[in-house]
């Protein structure tokens, strides 16, 4: 599955804000997961983008065609759209210039988010006998510091 994040412009057309990007997952045997990458649109964000009305458009592979029958049977489908709520966490990151090397003169790197991964046995609960992974996500490159 791949996805794109869209926003509604002032002229009511949809603009692209981000798209999915495959990232290897150590916790799942090297399989790839899709994570959202925002495009570098800082200038337009200030002027034009209303993220309150952002749209996440999912694209499923043809092999998942029966997924919609299952979702309809289990009550996840309305007449015309899929209703599903989820948590959205966004990390803004500076990657140009001195931020690329982590050598920012305006202070230390800031830890923005910790993402946990492992054998999940419940919501936020992990099998204590299995390996567990923590991803420390900073606001800039950690190449220099690491």
């Amino acid at each position, binding site marked *: 599955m791949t996805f794109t994040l869209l926003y509604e412009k002032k002229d009511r057309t949809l603009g692209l804000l981000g798209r999915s990007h495959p990232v290897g997952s150590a916790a799942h045997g090297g399989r790839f997961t899709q994570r959202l990458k925002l495009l570098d649109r800082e200038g337009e964000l200030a002027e034009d983008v209303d993220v309150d009305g952002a749209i996440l458009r999912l694209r499923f592979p043809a092999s998942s065609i029966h997924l919609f029958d299952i979702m309809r049977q289990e009550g996840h489908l309305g007449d015309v759209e899929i209703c599903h709520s989820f948590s959205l966490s966004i990390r803004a990151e500076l990657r140009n210039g001195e931020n690329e090397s982590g050598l920012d003169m305006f202070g230390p790197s800031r830890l923005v988010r910790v993402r946990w991964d492992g054998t999940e046995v419940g919501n936020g609960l992990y099998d204590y006998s299995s*390996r*567990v992974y923590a991803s*420390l996500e900073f606001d800039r490159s*950690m190449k220099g510091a690491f």
Partner: protein
Amino acid sequence: MLKNADFVSLVADAPNVSAGSVDSAPVVAKPAVKRLSAVDPSTILLEFHGGSLALGWCHKLQFN
């Protein structure tokens, strides 16, 4: 350099009151592997061995 520094530990913070059974001796675990993400250099990946979590406890990362 963070790669060789002892900068983070996984510690048991408090017992989970809804857990059926709870380990009596929480452990402090160091990451077995620390590496910089190849696809995202702003992310440091920590890997902890199986058994690093104490049964029935909530855990947190402690930074030195």
